């Protein structure tokens, strides 16, 4: 039988995601893709994949997965979680392993990922990637539209995800050091595009306020609760386009930040837009987290975007074999094809 990962328990919401499906928003198709593309890229890099390969995005509660291949190399990057490698599906205890590393798991063994802490998402990448046909150029799952990823939906028990490789390559396991996944003190945003729907005072209060990420948040939008934002000119606008990170303010005055599965157009005024460099950190903020904003200029945001992509290009340098120090590793890593030479600018879909 072909190599696969079998889902024994799906977790809360486990989906296949890559860097998304840009280019079809004019047809009403959201971009989708990983909520935290930095962790997704790092997970792929740890198993030697291209950074834009599809991986599992685990939200809040992890899945239990059985290996149906000679062996597979997996990596785990993102939120903290208790991850156990069990000898078989009947076992209740096994070897506890850390996140931020790769590991080889053998046929019949089971990977059990518990509840996440310190973040909303964890990425599980597999060496060689999943053998799933892309839809419109991407394997990202678009839940509402019911396409992409694995059968257009979140994973359920019994799913069998086919793998490209039937066995892991022979190499040392690695970990990633110094990848900064801390929650930002303040999420930076640019005022507008509908800032003329709010008074100057109201915009200043919004940037001075503090909000809580509340229940009902999902891959489409992060619902915030806090000081009510009042509209100066009503809360209906003639629908216009929605950018990633748009902060719309519906009639109840509680802002919603639009994320990866956001609708392409909408009719609520948008008071501000989270900058592209802060979207990965935003995507990993769990429900219950507090969030405060800082207003920045477009120029500052674009400089921060440049910094983020410089950091992304250095992901390969942060990967070190387990049991070695992080010095003079580059030649060895190049041997193992862990550092890809070039980052394709057109994949910079943050």
């Amino acid at each position, binding site marked *: 039988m072909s190599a696969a990962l079998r889902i024994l328990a799906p977790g809360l919401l486990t989906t296949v995601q890559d860097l998304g499906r840009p280019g079809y928003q004019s047809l009403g198709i959201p971009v989708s893709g990983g909520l935290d593309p930095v962790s997704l890229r790092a997970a792929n890099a740890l198993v030697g994949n291209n950074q834009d390969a599809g991986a599992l995005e685990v939200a809040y509660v992890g899945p239990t997965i059985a290996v149906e291949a000679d062996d597979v190399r997996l990596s785990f990057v993102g939120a903290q979680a208790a991850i156990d490698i069990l000898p078989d599906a009947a076992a209740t205890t096994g070897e506890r392993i850390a996140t931020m590393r790769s590991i080889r798991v053998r046929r019949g063994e089971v990977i059990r990922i518990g509840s996440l802490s310190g973040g909303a998402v964890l990425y599980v990448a597999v060496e060689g990637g999943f053998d799933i046909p892309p839809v419109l150029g991407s394997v990202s799952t678009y839940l509402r539209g019911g396409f992409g990823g694995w059968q257009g939906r979140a994973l359920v028990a019994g799913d069998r995800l086919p793998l490209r490789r039937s066995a892991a390559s022979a190499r040392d396991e690695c970990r990633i050091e110094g990848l900064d996944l801390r929650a930002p003190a303040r999420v930076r945003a640019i005022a507008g595009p509908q800032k003329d729907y709010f008074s100057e005072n109201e915009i200043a209060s919004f940037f001075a306020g503090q909000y809580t990420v509340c229940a009902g948040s999902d891959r489409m939008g992060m619902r915030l609760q806090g000081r009510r934002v009042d509209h100066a000119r009503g809360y209906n606008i003639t*629908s216009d386009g929605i950018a990633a990170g748009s902060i719309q303010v519906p009639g109840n005055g509680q802002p919603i930040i639009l994320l990866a599965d956001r609708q392409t157009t909408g009719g609520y005024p948008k008071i501000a837009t989270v900058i592209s460099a802060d979207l990965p950190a935003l995507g990993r903020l769990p429900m219950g987290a507090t969030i405060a904003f800082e207003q920045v200029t477009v120029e500052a945001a674009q400089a921060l975007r440049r910094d983020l992509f410089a950091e992304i290009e250095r992901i390969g340098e942060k990967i070190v074999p387990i049991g070695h120090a992080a010095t003079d590793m580059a030649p060895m890593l190049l041997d193992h094809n862990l550092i890809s030479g070039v980052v394709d600018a057109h994949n910079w879909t943050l």
Partner: protein
Amino acid sequence: MPDYRVLNAGDTAIVVEFGESIDRRLSTWVLALARRLDEARLDGLVETVPTFRSLLVHYDPLILPTASLAARIAELMQGLPVTEQGGRLWRLPACYDPSLGLDLADVAARTGLSPAQVIERHCAVTYYVYMLGFLPGQAYMGDVPAELALARRESPRLKIPAGSLAIAGAMTCIFPLETPCGWHLIGRSPVALWERGPRPRALLAPGDQVGFAPVSLREYERLLVKAADGTLEIFPMDEAVEAAA
């Protein structure tokens, strides 16, 4: 040259806004600019999203600086066509049976018309597709006759079936997927505006013109079976509609 303003939607998108209302003239400019920008194939331009009254332009500022993009847009505004470019003309089957058009009686009561008059008014118009959005392939079509224009329902339904034909304000839509919805349901169409499968596609495009052909419940059910088999093929009436100035 049309009046417009450029608004920042974060650091990787700008809104080119021609106005704030739903207006065929604004739509013509939006679609013309979208076409010109797409043809210009600027390095660093990711995609454009036309809406009723503005064009959202997604770009990568590390490749295409904001100022260069704005300057290029200013150039493209020169001599922007003010007449509609020919879209395709469609005639889509629609069933207005009260078992599908759950709000037909309510719409009749609110507008002071009979249900038959509501249907007659709704399908007397050839609608213009302003934009696609909200759901894959969902076309916003206008303008609904003023006597049928109603605000959205006070309490939206949590779920309406795919294919629902509905009205709200000056717009009519066929909802391509099951979705929550606050619009008034007046019927259903068997036509999939969004085709699933390995090569998904949207049937309609902005600038197209759409008329509705009323069909009986029996005919609707027959067409629905064909649609499920993948044998319901819908073609435009002709290649291009002559531009209406």
